């Protein structure tokens, strides 16, 4: 898995072909087709908006909380989709892996890319909603892609690791499902971080912001709806060393996943 190979022509073509196939097949036979990619997050968002903003009043007093809620949901949906699809990628293409030799990581990447395409479509919905909600478009918006890129890198790293583990231990998919459920509630997506700090204390906010997903969602929100409306990691930690922890976790996951995947990929054809 040399860097030069990742971008080699042959592999690019294969990746493209797999992604296109995935995309073509996803909404095969449904009347609305690709529209579902946009419709689904909108409908989910509508439910959350009614429950958390309208009835529970989670975002009371926080400007553009609805946009932040939508953005957080969209990013979380991507994270679960990318890791789940990536995890199943190798196993679900077992029939091909047993018959043809080609770089295995491409399948994992293609699984995450179709989730990434969904994310980009969903971000269009977020963008439209920003206009409706009267969000001020600041310069910090240019920093927004950084969070998305880091989120993708993190999800891809996890997908590599999970896909290789999944070949040997199918149970990992159930463990991961439960873990994601827990992580969802441990991440300030539905509730604002400021609410946690107000009711439980600063330590709770600090604890939550060790989670890379939380950090990335909060910083993406800050870039979109303004730093004054979002609590970011640098506001809960005074020591910059703590600030680095979530990023170190991302780095560690990517390194471990790559090594583990590389070490195991030659056996995939036999084990799958």
């Amino acid at each position, binding site marked *: 898995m040399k860097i030069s190979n990742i971008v080699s022509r042959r592999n690019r*073509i*294969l990746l493209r072909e797999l992604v296109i196939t995935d995309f073509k097949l996803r909404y095969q036979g449904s009347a609305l087709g690709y529209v579902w990619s946009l419709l689904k997050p909108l409908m989910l968002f509508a439910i959350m908006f009614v429950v958390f903003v309208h009835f529970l009043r989670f975002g009371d007093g926080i400007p553009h909380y609805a946009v932040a809620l939508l953005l957080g949901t969209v990013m979380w949906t991507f994270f679960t989709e990318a890791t789940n699809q990536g995890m199943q990628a190798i196993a679900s293409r077992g*029939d091909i892996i*047993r018959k*043809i030799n*080609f770089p295995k990581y491409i399948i994992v990447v293609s699984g995450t890319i179709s989730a990434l395409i969904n994310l980009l479509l969903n971000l269009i919905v977020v963008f439209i909603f920003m206009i409706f909600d009267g969000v001020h478009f600041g310069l910090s918006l240019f920093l927004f892609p950084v969070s998305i890129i880091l989120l993708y890198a993190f999800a891809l790293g996890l997908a590599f690791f999970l896909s290789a583990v999944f070949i040997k231990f199918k149970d990992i998919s159930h463990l991961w499902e439960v873990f994601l459920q827990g992580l969802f509630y441990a991440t300030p997506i539905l509730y604002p971080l400021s609410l946690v700090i107000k009711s439980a204390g600063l330590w709770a906010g600090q604890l939550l912001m060790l989670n890379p997903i939380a950090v990335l969602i909060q910083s993406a929100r800050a870039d979109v709806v303004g730093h004054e409306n979002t609590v970011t990691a640098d506001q809960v930690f005074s020591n910059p060393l703590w600030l680095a922890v979530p990023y170190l976790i991302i780095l560690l996951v990517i390194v471990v996943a790559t090594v583990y995947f590389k070490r195991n990929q030659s*056996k995939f*054809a036999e084990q799958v």
Partner: protein
Amino acid sequence: MDDNAVIVKDLKKSFKLPHESHSGLKQAIVSIGKKHHKGYEVQEVLKGLSFEVKKGDFFGIVGRNGSGKSTLLKLLAGIYTPDSGIVQTHGSVVPFIELGVGFNPELTGRENVFLNGALLGFSNNEMKAMYDEIVEFAELEQFMDQKLKNYSSGMQVRLAFSIAIKAQGDVLILDEVLAVGDEAFQKKCNDFFEKIKEDRTKTVILVTHSMESVRKYCNKAIMLQAGKVVATGSPDKVADEYSLANLLDINKVTDSVVDSDGSYLSVKLLSQPLLTSRDTLKVEAKYRAPNDRPVMIKFAPLAYGNASLMTANSKVLHDITTADEKEHLIHYELPLADFNSGDLTLVVLLADVETKANIADYGYNGELSFKISDGKNEVGGVFKNKGDIKLVK
């Protein structure tokens, strides 16, 4: 000089076969305590193979089921990694372990061709260049924009096969994929293989059970048995070895049937099962027929489809009959000078002299199969050129 397409040296491969599925957390935890129980068996599939394939060869690999052919192909194709030894391939290897890998029923024929091509390592432009030829060879011009699920199975196979043989790789690996399509399509494939056989730039590695294909297309072959190369060289020689191995396996002496009255018939080949027309087939039969009436013994060679060619009858030949309770030993010899190359089997019958009813038979399940092999036949048929032809006018 780099005229080798494939070099295999002392190749070894074994698999761990789990006793039961250990791909679950429960099993993993359960087996922690059991130190002696490994949970798997090591199966050595390839035990040190070495051979070379030259550029332009049409190379045959034959062997019984379980001899390691498929594992070898997967190692050649890079799907498996060797435990030890070397597998070197020069040029692009296009493997067809199975036809139509990655074919998706929901995609159109055209999309499937491009997807399959991408999996095999061809770029879009390369596939575009090949596309027309593939479609033309498959004779599916009108169907390419239809979904694959609407194809008949014959059409799917034709499309997959056309991709396989039109793929512009240097080394083509084919596993048991020759007999597809109807007769016309087979003829086309045959012509194609005849052509590719002459093409010195293309190397083909063919795994097959059809000795006819080996003799027809290959210029070199090896035979695998229990993970080792047991024969190598000319396709005729290897094909004969393969047939012999098969015959030896079929001709394992089965116990003769003993009736309640103690009568039995047991026969074995005294000669090798693989013969030439210069040899004589020798057979030994033992029987016991507690019968107050005389019995005779008959030997009948059968051709393909159990068609009887002739019958040698002990009474008619030498007036040999027996009518006692003793065991008798009979020898039968058949000179093969008049026979063409081919597969034959022998049936031995014990019959009542008066009523002509058979009392016992042996060999109807092919227990006494033998093969005559002189290389290519001059004319077809079971027997060599027989009879006389005169130009009268």
